[in-house]
């Protein structure tokens, strides 16, 4: 099957000499929900900018559903819908017109454009606001407006650059539901986000970009399986009389009523509870100390260890 996105040897050097991309290869399968993660300045937005032709590449090839960016630009553009990181609509335009005009740029006649606009604004809870100026919308509404605008020409590939930044939890969940629904309808989605919980919940495939290079490109399941240690936080029913001296589990006391336990990969939680039970420690509740993907991410990117220091390889 033709990949939704195929990138080979992509390089970008800006006029000031900054090398944002140092030759990346990336393939996104059709229909996938793909996360592109990386720290600030890693090259995510440059990559998206090149795919959407807002940034000129220095070298390499980009193909979207088999259409080459250099030789078949119009077909590439028709295939992509972009939800950028920053608000980029006219604040002094009614939101209905923003969506309908976007359809017009793709050659969609006005009547049909209004029908599609109505559909997506309804889906995203904005239809009642269609006559309001964009500047009057809340941050979350503006994000949803950009999603409606990106979908109005029915692209096969939707690219979302930090779509839920500044969006409250409830709204973020409803946007996740919406994105999951349109993905299950067959639309390929590429997502960049700083909420790694978001990537973990939504995406089946993931690439991590750092310092202009792809340092990981695999399935979410495989990536999370590489996590060596998970830290569990245990809320106790009563203060412990002492910590068990058992080498099988690494326990430490955080405060009077809280313990932390490091669980190694392959280790069973039963071992932990057996030791706790023998020590007479009663556990009220238990949770992950941090998001698992976040833990991996910090270790893999330049903020933490070099990838070569980990037992991580490309798949």
């Amino acid at each position: 099957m033709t990949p939704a996105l195929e990138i080979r040897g992509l390089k970008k050097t800006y006029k000031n000499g900054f090398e944002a991309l140092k030759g990346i290869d990336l393939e996104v399968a059709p229909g996938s929900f793909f996360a592109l993660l990386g720290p600030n300045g890693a090259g995510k937005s440059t990559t998206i900018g090149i795919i959407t032709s807002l940034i000129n590449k220095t070298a390499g090839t980009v193909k979207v559903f088999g259409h080459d960016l250099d030789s078949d630009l119009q077909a590439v553009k028709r295939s992509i819908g972009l939800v950028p990181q920053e608000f980029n609509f006219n604040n002094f335009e009614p939101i209905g017109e923003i969506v309908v005009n976007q359809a017009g740029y793709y050659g969609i006649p006005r009547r049909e454009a209004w029908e599609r606009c109505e559909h997506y604004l309804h889906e995203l809870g904005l239809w009642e606001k269609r006559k309001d100026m964009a500047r009057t919308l809340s941050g979350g509404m503006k994000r949803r407006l950009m999603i409606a605008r990106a979908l109005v020409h029915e692209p096969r590939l939707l690219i979302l650059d930090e779509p839920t930044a500044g969006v409250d939890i409830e709204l973020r969940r409803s946007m996740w539901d919406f994105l999951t629904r349109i993905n299950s309808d067959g639309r390929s989605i590429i997502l960049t986000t700083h909420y790694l919980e978001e990537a973990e919940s939504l995406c089946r495939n993931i690439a991590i970009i750092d310092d202009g290079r792809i340092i990981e490109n695999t399935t979410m399941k495989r990536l999370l399986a590489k996590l060596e240690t998970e830290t569990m936080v245990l809320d106790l029913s009563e203060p412990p009389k002492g910590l068990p001296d058992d080498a099988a589990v690494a326990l430490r006391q955080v405060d009077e009523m809280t313990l932390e336990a490091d669980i190694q990969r392959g280790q069973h939680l039963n071992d932990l509870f057996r030791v706790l039970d023998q020590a007479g420690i009663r556990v009220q509740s238990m949770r992950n100390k941090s998001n698992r993907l976040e833990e991996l991410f910090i270790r893999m990117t330049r903020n933490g260890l070099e990838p070569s220091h980990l037992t991580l390889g490309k798949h």
Partner: protein
Amino acid sequence: MSGLHLRDYWTAFRTIVTKEVLRFARIWVQTVLPPVITTALYFIIFGGLIGERIGDMEGYRYMDFIVPGLIMLAVITNSYSNVVSSFFGSKFQRHIEEMLVSPVPNSVIILGFVFGGVARGLSVGVAVLLVSLFFSPLSIHNPGVMLVIVLMTSILFALAGLINGVFARTFDDIAIVPTFILTPLTYLGGVFYSISLLPEFWQGVSMLNPILYMVDAFRYGSLGHSDFPLAMSFAIISGFIAVLYGVALTLLNRGVGIRS
């Protein structure tokens, strides 16, 4: 999936023009009304009060002589300022990206912005013409020439405004050209006088001013009087339009000011 077809181009063009027209119509108090009031003041002060003392110009009442020039002044400045402010605004707020990510070709983007500017230029031109009827009877010698010249002039300055908008990085940059180049050239382009009044040297200098030929040709269409052959004016305006369109298309194709 292929690219756009001719019908799609037309839809995209209409979309941009409609968006542009709605933009300036929505803020008509800022865009259409001020030039009408300013020109009305020109008619009252220069045409009425001072013009009475000047007497005739090239055989016409001074008020009648300046009407075509003042219409052209309004058309030129409004065509230019509409496109420069709209294009720069779309860069500044980054909603130019709405068009750049879409398959609409740069040529259609240019034409869309230009005809949006033409729409404003002609709207203001018509409004000024209507105001002029309070001061001077409508004089049409050759309506075809009037219409074509005003349309071409509007296209020319809309293109110039777009190029200014491409290079502009700050709001100051979109005010510099109209203030320091466009307005002086227009005032010295025979709006208020016939260049035959000037000493020979300054007549020669004036002939380097392209606006002179536009005002002169429009005045011919209105009054039947011109200082230069009509064909010369058409050739000069056509030449400028071709060059400016070529420059604008090259700039957009290279992504100057809009792509990294």
